């Protein structure tokens, strides 16, 4: 079974990203919305109408395919006209609307060209125009940017979010890329092995992961596990292999003494100082490597017991620290920035 029980409600005009590693069932979910896969049980409703028995051609849920699936025997404008032709719109209107969309996406000059002669970015726009020309209420996108160069991806993300806001239509966007989902979506659905792990705003998913998997998938978190020691005064003391740390459980979270639990510290919440200046929760660790990712740098540290620690810093903060590979510093964080993972 590719997708387990899934309960997801998408609001009109919302940009929802379904994210997860390959094989998590995100594309299957999208194909079920389009009617190209049948759910073995349950219901799919669009605007309140049950869709299970409706054929794909009558659903009006156009899709932008990962492979783009442009028709190679048609030129650019004919590809875009296709959806209108299937709706038996008259030829003049077909052509006018198709050209309007090509114009809007900045590829009108290629209207008569063969699709195989276009660049990746241009073909991407053709696929988008072809899906949007019928002015649908919902647009499904299956990793549409995965074949593009990095600089084009950022540019197309801007194009997509702008279009979505202008048209006010619902976008359901499938991706394995956290940065794409976070950059564009109003809400993110995180899936793993066919099950939904968390649904929430990008901020919520990033700062308060509902599941260990989510915390790991989001990528720049440090996860520490230990045993709860004392739970008085609302702050939890945790004994981990790296020492004792204090964690503030969220409202409604209760942990019994002696229970094992894990918490997350965002890589951007860690302070690097000398021992004297370190905050309450602290570990000495030594710098192993640096990874430059633009304005921020990810630093990889290792503690004496060999646990990896990730810290993100702005380039200018890092310049002030003047760290060398192998140098030992104190990584520390405030108790309020440690997020206790719910036990699942």
């Amino acid at each position, binding site marked *: 079974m590719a997708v387990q029980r899934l309960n997801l409600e998408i609001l009109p005009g919302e940009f929802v990203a379904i994210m997860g590693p390959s094989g998590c069932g995100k594309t299957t979910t999208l194909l079920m919305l389009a009617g190209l896969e049948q759910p073995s049980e349950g219901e799919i409703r669009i605007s309140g109408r049950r869709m299970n028995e409706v054929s794909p051609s009558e659903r009006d849920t156009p899709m932008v395919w990962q492979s783009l*699936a442009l028709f190679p025997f048609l030129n650019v404008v004919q590809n875009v006209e296709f959806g209108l032709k299937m709706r038996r719109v008259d030829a003049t209107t077909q052509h006018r609307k198709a050209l309007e969309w090509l114009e809007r996406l900045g590829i009108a000059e290629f209207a008569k060209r063969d699709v195989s002669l276009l660049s990746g970015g241009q073909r991407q726009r053709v696929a988008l125009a072809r899906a949007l020309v019928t002015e649908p209420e919902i647009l499904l996108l299956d990793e549409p940017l995965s074949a593009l160069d990095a600089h084009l991806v950022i540019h197309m993300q801007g194009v997509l979010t702008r279009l979505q806001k202008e048209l006010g239509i619902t976008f359901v966007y499938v991706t394995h890329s956290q940065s794409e989902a976070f950059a564009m979506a109003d809400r993110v659905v995180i899936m793993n092995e066919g099950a939904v792990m968390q649904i929430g705003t990008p901020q919520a998913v990033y700062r308060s992961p509902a599941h260990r998997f989510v915390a790991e998938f989001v990528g720049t978190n440090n996860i520490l596990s230990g045993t709860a020691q004392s739970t008085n005064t609302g702050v939890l003391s945790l004994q981990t292999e790296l020492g004792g740390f204090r964690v503030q459980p969220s409202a409604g979270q209760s942990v019994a003494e002696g229970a094992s639990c894990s918490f997350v510290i965002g890589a951007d919440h860690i302070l690097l100082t000398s021992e004297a200046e370190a905050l309450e929760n602290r570990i000495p660790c030594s710098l192993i490597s640096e990874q430059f990712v633009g304005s921020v740098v990810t630093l990889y540290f290792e503690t004496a017991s060999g646990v990896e620690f990730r810290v993100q810093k702005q380039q200018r903060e890092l310049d002030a620290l003047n760290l060398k590979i192998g140098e030992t510093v104190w990584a520390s964080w405030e108790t309020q920035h440690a997020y206790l993972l719910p036990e699942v």
Partner: protein
Amino acid sequence: MDPQLEAAAWNLGASEWRAMATVILPFTRPAIISALCLTMAVSFDEFAVAWFVSGLNKTVPVIILEILQGNVDPQINAIGTLVFIVSITLVVIAQILFMTRTPKERHGEG
């Protein structure tokens, strides 16, 4: 053919029959025509089967054999030339169709 092309046609509002007419047939047209030319060439040149099964309606290769069995006649050279030209033309057309299909499969760069 990428099966997603057909699914893409359904997704854009084509019923199964319209997808067949507007996507599958245009996509496979060169292959269908070249297959047609090749089978025509093969059956036109076919001798053994035609010789055994033809009754009153004789095919060209069978007629050539009958003429040859009687006497050597310059007709045979003329017929032979025609047969050769027809079948080679069919094969060449089939080849051209295959070759025009291939560059279209190539993806644009960048």
